[in-house]
């Protein structure tokens, strides 16, 4: 269908045509839904649409956004990373425990590298051990959670280094430092996924691994790298969580992987791989953040929040999945 401006065509027609041409409901569902939610909450409560509340929502979502960005790479590659919650947990705990002894930056670097190493381990077992990523990362989730309990012996480490807390969850000129980290990670994710060949390799593996292999793409190497980046982003998420919670605790990050997957999927990246955008994931994570914040303000009990988030996740997939393209749905 041509979109050329025909005389007499109304503005609405042109907007509609542009909407359809750029991907229609499939591409824009998450954005439209986020706007509808924001509009709805703003009408229902005058406490919602304030600068302060907007900043609260953003700050509450920083960990989810950063971790989900990394997971987006893995999911576009057609795999899954269930271990991110545990990696966030261990990196938060390790940061908290090392801050005083080895210094702030040193602790942060150790935590991020630890995340990257655990991610790499996922990738190696998946790519070279030929074990499905679901199983590898499920094992990692469980084993690392055990490791966390072992090293903390169950007791939380309170963070008293104000400098660290300010550095990663303070504000400068009203801008949250956590949000700046998110922006940096977003730039890295976009660079990886869209600017360099690595992103194309990952998409090719997600879209058809056999084709990628036959075309000479180093499939195993790309698989390890995508898990490395997911682990690294989870490590950064762990540092942010430590700063926000001001404590390293054995229960941190439990269940985060499910929120992460929800954010990625609501953002329009199908679990079948091959397509997806970093920007969609940010929208998806914000949708979850806005929903929980808005429902809180309205005094909706938390069990309803779970029910609504669940319904929105299913609705998002129902409306955005391209069944013709994906073929068999399992």
């Amino acid at each position: 269908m041509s979109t050329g401006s025909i005389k007499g065509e109304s503005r609405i027609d042109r907007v509609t045509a542009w909407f359809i041409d750029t991907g229609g409901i499939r591409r824009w569902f998450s954005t439209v839904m986020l706007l509808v939610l924001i509009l709805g909450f703003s009408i229902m409560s005058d406490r919602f649409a304030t600068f302060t509340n907007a900043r609260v929502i953003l700050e509450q979502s920083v960990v989810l956004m950063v971790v989900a960005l990394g997971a987006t790479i893995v999911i576009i590659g057609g795999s899954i990373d269930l271990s991110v919650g545990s990696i966030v947990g261990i990196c938060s705990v390790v940061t908290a425990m090392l801050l005083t002894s080895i210094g702030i930056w040193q602790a942060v670097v150790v935590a991020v590298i630890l995340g990257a190493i655990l991610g790499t381990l996922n990738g190696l077992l998946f790519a070279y051990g030929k074990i499905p990523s679901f199983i590898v990362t499920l094992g990692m989730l469980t084993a690392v959670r055990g490791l966390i309990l072992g090293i903390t012996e169950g007791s939380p480490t309170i963070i008293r280094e104000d400098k660290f807390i300010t550095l990663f969850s303070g504000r400068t000129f009203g801008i949250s430092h956590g949000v700046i980290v998110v922006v940096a990670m977003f730039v890295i994710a976009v660079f990886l996924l869209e600017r360099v060949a690595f992103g194309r390799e990952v998409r090719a593996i997600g879209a058809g691994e056999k084709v990628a292999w036959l075309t000479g793409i180093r499939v195993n190497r790309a698989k390890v790298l995508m898990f490395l980046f997911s682990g690294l982003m989870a490590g950064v998420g762990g540092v942010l969580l430590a700063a926000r919670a001001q404590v390293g605790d054995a229960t941190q990050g439990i269940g985060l992987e499910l929120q992460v997957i929800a954010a990625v999927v609501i953002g329009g990246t199908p679990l079948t791989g091959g397509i997806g955008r970093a920007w969609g994931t940010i929208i998806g994570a914000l949708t979850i953040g806005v929903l929980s914040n808005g429902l809180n303000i309205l005094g909706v009990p938390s069990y309803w929040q779970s029910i609504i988030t669940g319904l929105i996740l299913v609705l998002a997939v129902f409306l955005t999945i391209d069944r013709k393209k994906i073929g068999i749905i399992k």
Partner: protein
Amino acid sequence: MSTTEIWAAKAIQKSFGASKALSSAHLSLRTGEIHALVGENGAGKSTLSKVAAGVYQIDEGTFELDGLPFIPISIMNAAKSGIGLVFQEQSTSSSLTIAENIFLNDLRRFRVGALINRKKIEAAASTQLKSVGADFNVSTDMANLNVGQKKILEVARALAQNPRLIFMDEVTAFLDSRGRELVLKAMQNLKEQGITVCFVTHHMDEVFQIADRVTVMRDGKTIQTLKVGETDRSELERLMVGREVASHMYPPKEKKSASSETLLELSNISVGDRINGVTLSVAPGEVIGIAGLAGCGGNILLKAIGGDLPVKGGSMKFRDEDYSPKSPRDAIELGIAYLPGERDLEGLLSLFSVRENISLSILPASFSSVSTATEAKISKQYVDDLKIKTHSIESQVDTLSGGNRQKVVLSKLLALNPKLLLLDNPTRGVDVGAREHIYQSITDAAHAGMTIILYSEDLPELLGLSDRILVLRHGGVSKEFRNVNKLAENDVITFML
């Protein structure tokens, strides 16, 4: 054998997208006969047996069962009316027991509450196997069965539905001589029980060994039905090929001076269990054709040279150096590009655009930036050169027709500017117009000095494009034709069967 007609197909037409598989298929089967269906690849034999058994729906025409119109709407519907089908492909599941595989469509017969009565089902399976003359035990593990026995099992499964008429689609294609004997014996058994058998085959000796009558198909049409006793091999072959070769479709071959150099050398190589001891030496700039029936291993041979399958025995040399690729990447780095036979599964990323598909082979290093502009320029050039019909280079590749999709895969390989190009059935499922473009670009590449190994199930294409033809049979070379110019299809077919 009586002369009553049990089943007939009249003026059947069936298309898949743009390609017409059946344009005028007729077939008449008599009660209790064994009827062979023969023809070249793509003649429509498999399609006819599949529409007869309800796998696909026909576009035009009619079927008659006992003189009454009967067009099955599904496999189950056909089975209930007494028409069974044994597929060419394996359709047994190794996670089920032998008995469960046989009664897959009718497990409820043996249900006791939520469970299956093991004794009852195994007893029934045993009877079923005996009726096809099989000699293996039902309690055997599926993993212990060979391909021939698995095929027998599928025959037994079709029989479990008490059919009066069974279609068998190239059931012997992948079997060795022992497996083939088993299946032929089973067919004979069926005949003795009064069941009509219609089997598709490429093996002429099977026709003369077991069939009562034979029908020849060509290009989706029925050519003739003959009594086996009143015909011979050469008549059948002539009827199978009989078409006029549209020679103008193939660009003229360039006169090449005999080169003493060798680009690729295969010494007695074996791959998997399909290729056993193939020796071949390829000179730079040659176009080598590989002929053979489906299942002859030509695709496997190309995969091995292209680095997709490991070579089990023998050795390969490329430009006088030992060559043993561990992945397609190793092959590509040396300038060897492989076009897979399974276009949509192995050649194309349907989620990607035309540009992204073409430039997939020439991506820069992982962390170097991609230039959309360069990719667009290269893609546009191939879209023009190969006359790829697409709305734009940004269109998703699955919006293109089969022939144009194939041109995209070919462009992806040509973009590598390989020294050696391996083509597995480059025009399979491609319409005539796109074929000519593909032939032209293959010839152009050869003129530019590219060496090409072409495996094709389309004989006219092999004769039209190759400088030299190698015929494969049962995993080995059965004949080499050094001069292709005066070669007729019959000459080649003789060495394929």
